[in-house]
């Protein structure tokens, strides 16, 4: 790897991190839930694809058609049942509930799929790359993931900014009680927001499964990267989240360029440094505008 390549690969990896972080940011910003099961849900998305794909198609890209909608419905229902009830008991309860969910998911996946690693096969696309010169080549898959991340973030942003549902989601995020007296069915809207967050988690989980192997316990490190991307970018700002993801990705690939054993540590150090210097992140916004 040379420097230009490290930067390119870092930015591309940032797309994946941002995709993970998007749902986490949405769920925290709108519903007020810090979802500790976020990474495990993404992994679950991968396993849902593993389970269903054999009866659909050999190419895992097809999973993008059915896993996100399943997760959307799953998100809505879990908000209206489990999460809403825990929210009414205060923020600590939601932490415990999502932590519990994380443990349950990991163990259920271990039980159902064993500890062996899986991956999602997308055929030749996985290895093809656009060769720019002898030093720099860009994997179609990684580039595709970055494009998907930008499309998802822009889509969520547009939905929040321009649609009636999006306005109601922002209203709930701003002031839940004021939203209720303005006629907003706040639970329904929180359910929709959770559904959207889960759709993005599913897409992130599928992208991750195509990009690398996963096991039932991969969720924890995914959660950590998502958290860090959200904090670096600034809470509530989706474009900040993309920037945060890219910072993490760059830190990883540039770090590995300096010292190959440091690649996994450097992003976390960069995160701590940002937290120390700018605790509210680089693009803090109360709500996306």
């Amino acid at each position: 790897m040379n420097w230009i390549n490290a930067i390119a690969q870092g930015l591309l990896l940032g797309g994946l991190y941002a995709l993970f972080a998007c749902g986490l940011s949405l769920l925290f910003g709108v519903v007020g839930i810090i979802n500790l099961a976020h990474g495990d849900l993404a992994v679950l998305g991968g396993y849902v694809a593993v389970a269903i794909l054999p009866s659909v198609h050999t190419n895992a890209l097809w999973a993008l058609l059915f896993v996100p909608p399943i997760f959307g419905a799953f998100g809505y229902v879990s908000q209206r049942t489990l999460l809403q009830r825990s929210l009414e008991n205060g923020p600590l309860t939601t932490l415990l509930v999502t932590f519990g969910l994380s443990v349950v998911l990991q163990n259920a996946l271990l039980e159902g799929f064993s500890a062996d690693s899986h991956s999602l096969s997308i055929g030749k696309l996985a290895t093809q790359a656009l060769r720019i010169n002898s030093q720099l080549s860009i994997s179609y898959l990684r580039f595709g993931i970055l494009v998907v991340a930008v499309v998802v973030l822009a889509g969520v942003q547009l939905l929040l900014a321009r649609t009636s549902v999006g306005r109601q989601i922002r209203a709930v995020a701003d002031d839940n009680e004021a939203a209720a007296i303005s006629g907003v069915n706040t639970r329904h809207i929180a359910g929709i927001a959770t559904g959207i967050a889960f759709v993005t988690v599913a897409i992130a989980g599928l992208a991750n499964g195509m990009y690398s192997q996963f096991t039932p316990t991969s969720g924890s490190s995914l959660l950590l990267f998502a958290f860090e991307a959200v904090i670096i970018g600034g809470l509530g700002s989706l474009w900040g989240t993309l920037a945060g993801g890219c910072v993490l990705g760059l830190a990883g690939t540039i770090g590995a360029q300096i010292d190959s054993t440091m690649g996994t540590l450097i992003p976390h150090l960069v995160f701590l440094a940002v937290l120390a210097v700018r605790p509210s992140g680089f693009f803090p916004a109360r709500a996306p505008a």
Partner: protein
Amino acid sequence: MSAHTESAATTPLLVAEGLTVLHGQLAALRDVSISVNAGEIFAVVGANGAGKSTLLRTLAGLHRPASGVVRVDGVDITTHATDQRVRQGVVLVPEGRRLFPSMTIEENLLVGAANGRRGEWNLDRVYDLFSWMRDRRKEKTSHLSGGEQQVVALGRALVANPRVLLLDEISLGLAPVIVQRIYQTLPSIAGGDMAVLVVEQDVTQAMRVAARFQCLLEGRTTLAGRPQDHTTEEIEAAYFGFGGLGSAAAS
């Protein structure tokens, strides 16, 4: 005033009977009843902490009463959620305005209009009534003055086409001129058959527009009637709780 007296004889639009509301150990309302007619402006007055906001918030569904019922047009809505009440035409302008700070004026109004009843009020009509709003509709509400915010909060409630409009201390923190201007628009808003329930600490302002009033003290009704039927002393005694009636209520 005679028009108001006549409408008082019609069936009331909003009725609450025997409301008792608890905040933990504290009974913020004790056996309070109220009845407001269509087309009427009704005032609830009382000192700070008397239970006025608790009353309006209970009517809007933000507090569940420990006992008592709330009816709108004969329909028992005691157990209905807040957003459901908005669709039934009970809309609150809360104390402190509570606009959505990250949103523009127009977005605030659009949220109010999204789930409300259909009717004669829409964004255009609000902009016609408060013409400054039309030019500034793309501005964030957090940049507005207190009086402007109050008017936007009123507009956000109006676009839901309320049958019962609940106004909680709309004069709070505003310059007297601005309060007067807002109050001047009330009769034209209430015109038709909207019932308006105003809550105020400032008795004179509320009494000027109201056909009937009720005075709360420590969660109980200490006086009710028409403003012109009571002397200032009577109202003050009911408000502050001195004199026979007040000390009985406080005990």
